[in-house]
């Protein structure tokens, strides 16, 4: 399988994006912005449509528009502080409506749009690979250098701001990085499934990891394993790579949560077995105590 040039590129692109997108997912999840990836992918689609309409490379315009959308959501989020998911809905509708209008205006590009909607990792070109590498490197640098303030901001923005952390700047930077990673991940799983690559590994890791650092590392491990397994399965079964990767990640999540539940139930049943003995002993003591007290009262 790996002797094919396109498969080498697919594994390379998938690996790069799986690592950085899974790390990003942990932060998005903890900041209650899980839908942001979905929203930005739809905004990015408008950029792709605009690029195709204006005859500019759609990958570049998609990249730029995703970054603009990410900055915009940061400001709309402030306007709807209590209902922050509204900002996601507003910008997603904006992105999707613009892309539909542009697609209708330029009917010749409709066919190539399926690769943006469902992904085509095996058809990743050199420019897309370079953009992925750039996004991953900038993202990795951002997450490494700012890992400590990001941890504090993820827990609580207000106390972070009070303690002197420049929350505003870091949040804007975070949004830009999110936009870049989402746009870079689009060729792999497509607009419709891009959030699966970002959110599913994180959703499992935050449930099983014992610490914050391990949550990020576990998420990266799940993302990488899921992507490589998905690509292999896709090659062997001749299924679409984007959908296969997303499905494998979903299987990982469901099975991971099931195993965790079984372990929890097993440990609960073990502790339950211990408890009745104590409870029975206690009830006997109290019963005896009560009966002896009652006997004393009766005697009186």
């Amino acid at each position: 399988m790996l002797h094919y040039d396109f498969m080498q590129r697919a594994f390379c692109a998938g690996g790069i994006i799986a690592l950085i997108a899974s790390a990003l997912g942990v932060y998005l999840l903890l900041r209650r912005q899980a839908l942001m990836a979905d929203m930005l992918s739809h905004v990015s689609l408008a950029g792709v449509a605009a690029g195709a309409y204006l005859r500019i490379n759609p990958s570049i315009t998609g990249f730029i528009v995703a970054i603009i959308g990410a900055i915009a959501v940061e400001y709309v989020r402030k306007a709807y502080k209590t209902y922050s998911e509204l900002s996601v809905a507003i910008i997603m509708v904006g992105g999707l409506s613009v892309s539909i209008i542009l697609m209708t205006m330029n009917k010749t590009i409709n066919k190539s749009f399926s690769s943006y909607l469902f992904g085509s990792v095996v058809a990743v070109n050199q420019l897309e690979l370079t953009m992925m590498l750039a996004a991953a490197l900038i993202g990795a640098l951002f997450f490494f250098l700012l890992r400590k303030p990001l941890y504090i901001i993820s827990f609580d923005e207000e106390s972070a701001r009070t303690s002197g952390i420049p929350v505003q700047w870091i949040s804007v930077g975070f949004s830009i990085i999110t936009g870049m990673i989402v746009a870079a991940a689009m060729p792999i799983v497509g607009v419709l499934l891009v959030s699966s690559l970002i959110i599913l590994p994180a959703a499992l890791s935050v449930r099983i990891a014992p610490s914050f650092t391990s949550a990020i590392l576990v998420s990266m491990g799940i993302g990488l394993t899921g992507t490589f397994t998905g690509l292999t399965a896709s090659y062997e079964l001749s299924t679409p790579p984007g959908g296969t990767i997303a499905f494998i990640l979903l299987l990982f999540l469901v099975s991971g949560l099931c195993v965790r539940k079984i372990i929890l139930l097993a440990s609960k049943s073990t502790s339950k077995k211990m408890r009745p003995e104590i409870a029975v002993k206690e009830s006997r003591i109290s019963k005896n105590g009560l009966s002896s007290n009652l006997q004393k009262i009766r005697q009186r």
Partner: protein
Amino acid sequence: MLLASLQDVTFGYGDVPCLEKANIEVHSGELIAVTGPNGASKSTLLKLAMQLLHPWEGKVTLSPTNTAGNKLVVAYVPQQIAAFNSGFPSQVTEFVRSGLHTQSSNWLRRLTPQAKQAADEAMQSMGVWELRNRRIGELSGGQKQRICIARALAMSPDLFILDEPTTGMDKESRKSFYTLMREQIDRHGKTVLIVTHNLSEMNDMLDRMITLERREEGGWKCCTTTLCSGHFAPAESLH
């Protein structure tokens, strides 16, 4: 030294003001309680003092420096913060130590043994040392609240701003917490602004009390600052 002040501050949500012409002053070395009924804008008052909210009218001042002339460090423990983040994937030690990374100069540095010791002492003083390797999500509400305070202690701030920090704590824990806060002021010159409903338990510890009351004429609330002679006077006499 004046650390924070609100001068004739009016603030509200939407079109309705909830605080009108509020005046408070927070001086260094004071233990000040903010009290009032539910919905009296106690948390809003704290957020205004920290400049997390901007007033409609009036002036809010927060000193940029402490008494030694260094940058003022503020530790804020919001109301039931830990309860909202029950699934946060973090160990107690990791969480408490994060309080030491608030300054940008510490973002890339490894913690010194002294800093780690400060975090350990904060955990010990809040009685959460045994929980140091546990995940936050596994802890009870009271334990979560205590680790949030331990993180604030580890920061060694000049000003503690605590919004009902003893929620979920038992009576003994509350009592030792108030004593600890008093010690922070008397021994280390810290300042504490605390929202509480347990005034009777803070007996002999308070320096001043800010009461939020409903105004008779318009139904809006206003602030009244009561100087406690020596320390706290019985709550009944202040109303």
